[in-house]
């Protein structure tokens, strides 16, 4: 059974989605199934995680077809870490959704699609097959697309059009890259590709393929100059949706970039430089973008872009220290961004607005909640010892070691901008006396809600805040994990061996 273990999180999510579809229109049942399922999923994932932690990289050959012929699932430390994070964020958002989503949306399939999205994320993290990755990407896109538009009014629809078009373009570029890769190597298995791509003589073609992957995944990861869909759409859907988007969607792009550039396209100086340049511009563009926004969800959206830059920078520098920084940042970012979008939802429910200009007085009205929100906000800034701080140690050190001073400047710039932006946000939303906000008629205000609904809003935020605090104060454990991931990534032979050795000894 142990060999199958890595697929259980996937299968559970799929089972949940199907089950939820059978409970169409019965929203209370859906709420319960989703939350209980997410708890179960988290428990299962923790178990799988510890299994992999103790036993090393695990692979599963779907259909018993040995690699590279079947679809291989590979759980290395990176994959399973991301699966675990997805489970954590997923549980939080599931609870948050049960409370914050209006019944109409729940009636029209919110939960099944939410779990399909989680399924897609898990699948993308676990698959060891490049075309299968494409397919997982598509399930992610279509789910997110549906989630954006569910019950969509003008803004969502507009956002969705942009979101869809650019992500579709990304998929097409990704598909083009797969076509070229298959044309060059005749293989789809990523471990096999790692071997075969290295043997291709025409390096220019390999480089072009890599560039295609870079752009295809880069759009999804929202890097400069490919990020446009993100600020245009992330603020439009309900907060629970934004939360899962903000926390996880772009990270799949980052994951794919990491995977492809650490496994298949390794050691190309041009590409690494490309990544660094892109990272720097991403840090810059996201930062300045966040600086001028008024809507808090938009602020967070731009900060997502900005912070993607850190991870790409680490990837571009491609030393063990740098990759460890990237991974640490990834871990931190998923939790914090998910939390912040839920926070924005909470603020919206409390005050009826997301505009910094209109908001205010939060601190005097809700001091304890403010303190709670302080945690994710300032974790994001990376005020030490909160979680965002630690990866910067690795990244800055790596930028000294690789002498990428522009990278260093960009890191400092982005950190600084984040600090300024969040401090400004704090001053505006929490400190300032609010102007006259007219109480909206018929608006579903937080203070009008029942006790359990309120709890549904706050509990997930508390949960993720504690996770953030753990990442910050228990940085040692996270760093050990990140280093291990980095070691595995730097030595792609580990991955290849895991895929093929298992194939040689079928059960």
């Amino acid at each position, binding site marked *: 059974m142990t060999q199958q273990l890595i697929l259980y999180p996937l299968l559970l999510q799929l089972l949940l989605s199907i089950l939820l579809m059978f409970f169409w229109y019965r929203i209370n049942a859906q709420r319960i199934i989703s939350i209980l399922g997410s708890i179960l999923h988290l428990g299962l994932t923790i178990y799988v995680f510890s299994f992999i932690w103790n036993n090393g990289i695990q692979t599963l050959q779907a*259909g018993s077809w040995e690699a590279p012929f079947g679809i291989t699932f590979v759980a290395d430390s990176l994959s399973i870490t991301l699966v675990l994070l997805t489970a954590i964020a997923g549980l939080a958002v599931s609870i948050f959704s049960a409370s914050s989503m209006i019944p109409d949306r729940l009636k*029209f399939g919110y939960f099944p699609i939410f779990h399909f999205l989680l399924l897609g994320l898990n699948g993308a993290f676990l698959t060891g097959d490049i075309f299968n990755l494409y397919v997982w990407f598509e*399930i992610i896109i279509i789910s997110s697309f549906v989630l954006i538009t569910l019950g969509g009014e003008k803004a969502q629809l507009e956002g969705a059009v942009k979101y869809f078009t650019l992500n579709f373009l990304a998929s097409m570029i990704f598909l083009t890259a797969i076509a070229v890769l298959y044309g060059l190597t005749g293989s789809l298995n990523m471990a096999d590709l790692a071997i075969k791509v290295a043997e291709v003589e025409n390096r220019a073609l390999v480089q072009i393929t890599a560039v295609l992957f870079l752009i295809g995944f880069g759009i999804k990861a929202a890097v400069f100059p490919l990020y446009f869909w993100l600020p245009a759409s992330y603020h439009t859907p309900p907060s629970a949706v934004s939360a899962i988007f903000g926390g996880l969607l772009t990270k799949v792009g980052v994951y794919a970039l990491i995977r492809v550039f650490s496994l298949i396209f390794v050691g190309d100086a041009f590409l690494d430089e490309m990544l660094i340049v892109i990272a720097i511009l991403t840090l810059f563009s996201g930062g*300045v973008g966040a600086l001028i926004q008024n809507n808090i969800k938009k602020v967070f959206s731009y900060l997502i872009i900005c912070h993607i830059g850190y991870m790409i920078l680490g990837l571009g520098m491609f030393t063990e220290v740098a990759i460890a920084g990237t991974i640490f940042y990834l871990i931190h970012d998923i939790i914090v961004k998910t939390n912040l979008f839920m926070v924005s939802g909470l603020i919206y429910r409390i005050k009826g607005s997301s505009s910094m200009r209109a908001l205010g007085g939060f601190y005097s009205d809700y001091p304890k909640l403010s303190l709670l929100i302080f945690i994710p906000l300032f974790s994001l800034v990376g005020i030490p010892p909160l979680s965002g701080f630690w990866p910067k140690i690795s990244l800055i050190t790596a930028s000294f070691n690789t002498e990428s001073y522009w990278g260093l400047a960009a890191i400092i710039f982005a950190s600084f901008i984040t600090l300024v932006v969040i401090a400004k946000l704090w001053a505006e939303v929490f400190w300032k006396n609010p102007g006259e906000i007219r109480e909206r008629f018929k608006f579903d205000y937080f203070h009008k809600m029942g006790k359990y609904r309120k709890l549904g809003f706050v509990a997930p935020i508390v949960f993720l805040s504690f996770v953030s605090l753990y990442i910050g104060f228990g940085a040692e454990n996270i760093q050990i994990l990140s280093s291990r991931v980095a070691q595995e990534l730097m030595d792609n032979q580990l991955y290849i061996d895991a895929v093929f050795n298992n194939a040689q000894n079928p059960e």
Partner: protein
Amino acid sequence: MLTAILLGFLFALFLVFAGKYFKGRLAVVSALIPLSLFIYFASFIPRIASGEVVTSNYEWVPSFGVNLGFSLDGLSLLFSLMITGIGFLVYVYTSSYLKNHQYLDRFYAYLSVFMGAMLGLVLSDNIISMFVFWELTSISSFFLIGFNNTSEASRKSALTALGITGFGGFSLLAGALLLGSMTGTYSIIEMMTMKEALAGHEFYILAVIFIFGAAFTKSAQFPFHFWLPGAMKAPTPVSTYLHSATMVKAGVYLLMRFTPVLGDTNFWNTTLIVVGAITMLYSAVHTLFRTDLKGVLAYSTISALGILVFLIGLGSQGAFLAAAVFIIVHALYKATLFLVTGIIDHQAGTRNVTVLAGLRKVMMPVAVAGFLAAISSAGIPPSIGFLGKELTYEASTHSTGMVILIVAAIVLTKILLLYAGFVAGIKPFTGKLPEKFTKVTMPGPLMWVPPLLLAILGIVFGIFPSLIESSLVKPVVTALGKDASDIHLALWHGFNTVLILSIITIAVGILLYFILKPSEKLENRIGKLEPVSPESILNKLTYFFGVFSKFWTNVFQNGYLRNYVTTIVLFLVILVGYIFIGNSRLVIDHTKLSQITAYELAVTIILIAGVFYTVFTRSRIGAVAAMGVVGLAICLLFVFYSAPDLAMTQFSIDTLTVILFVLVLYRLPKYLVLSDYKMRIRDGILSLTFGGLISLLALQVLAEPVNSDVGDFYAKNAYIMAHGKNVVNVILVDFRGTDTLIEISVLAIAAIGVYGLLKLRVKSSDRPN
């Protein structure tokens, strides 16, 4: 020691949850914290004085080399005592100053966090953990400065302060990490052993710049000084604590701490002297033009910080001695003056120097405190201020090079500071009590005792310098890496140049005080220079950066989908094109290509023509029909090239798409051509380049050797192992069945999405945003 540091944090946390339950006794409980800490640190005095360095080490994040390594030496002891000692008085003072304030618990929580952070900062041996505490001081001071958070000015000051010190913080982080990678350790004590190697290191200058960046911003050196006067919006206890005794001195502390690591080089010394001198002069001059008591004090604080930086820059034993003493001097008198100012503000309701006068008649003890502090600030014997000034002059006159310039600068500064001290400590109490202040009352003892105590200490230490000589001052000098054994503090140094300078200073200063009265006119005059001040320059830069940010953001995020697509495609075309052009190996291999037959040509022609028709027709239904043609042609190509399954699927899907279009289209408006000719040409060129590159790429790949292990495996095993003969179908349901499972999920999601999109109407009140 960890407990000592964490005490503040724990107490703050405790206050968050329990603060409101014992509002009345809050002050007592709170004040116990700094007091007990003060006693705790004081108990170390004998050991430190004997030359010991107390260290303790706690694991934290060993994989980063980050631990909670603390070391208590002379330097950190001095700061610890100041932090806890003045802290205690401020706690006491606050209990009265903010009596019955709604958020008193919150205030104490901030203060406690700040105190803990400050202690951590000065005690850390590990520079990363030092940075951690450094940032915490910035953040807690952000909250303290913004304590009156409903006032816009207050928020703005808090932001400015955080912005500047935060920037410095990142500089410290960069410096720390650079030093870490240069030396392989984050322990300052260990770094000291590598001083020579560091000085010769290629990154030495860079590391120093980073450290300076942190120190100068935190200690408000020119041109980063302006956040400090702004920060005076904070409640007075905050100003006292943060801006006189502790936080602003963190930068000075940092410089001192790194003197044994990075000091003694030309770059280090010169920069510090220059920056310190500019700062002390610039802000000393500024004190002349201020009417707000706190403004005067703020600028005099900056000036004092300048002096300290300047002294560290001089780098001699004498200079360090002077610095050590001056830190004590300044802490005592400046804290006093701030507290006094706070009392005046609290009781009289104004801090305007031009109207304040004669208050001695209503609050004598406060006046005494003010007077004593002014004396000390002026360096008039027997205050310890005198000692400090003497030592400073001593060090200046013994500096290497440009002695005259240095001495002139320091003397001028001291004259102006004397003036400032008098204005703050004496002027409000002398002269005739104006009518409107007759009803001003004496504050409670909790308010006036702390400043008086501090002021008296200033005199006591002046008269008995031995009290601090070996307990506090000498260990500091030792900690800075100089031999301190020959140091002897005394008020009377004999009649020498220094004494002459002192006399000149005092005389000219007092003269200045009587000639120059602070007035709004003067203040306005300096206001005219405002546009060229660093603050407004930075404001302008910030403004322009904001404009630029908007510009940059809007250039890319301009709302037009087609521009986004253009950018992405252009990016792709440039990158791929660049690789194509840069590589001469790219050739097309004709020999591997197959023949073209007439019917294939015909199908190709209708395919391409269909595409063109789709693109250029003005009829939507025509476009849809043309897509049908394209679909058919592709279907035929699939048939020709051995893909019957594909052909079927392609055709059925195309038909379904047509149906969907048809069901949707007749509800849509006219099919307009919305873009102009030029744009169409531009897009046409871009698209064709893109398409061309893809074609070229395809032909390139075809020239590479074929490799289809996977396909062969499937073909071999399709029937034998998977019991199917249509290999494509076997792949879909078996070899790669996972793909298909997800694929049908995609379809189901799409269907749910369509259903929701068309059937669900959300009430407007529930819309997000």
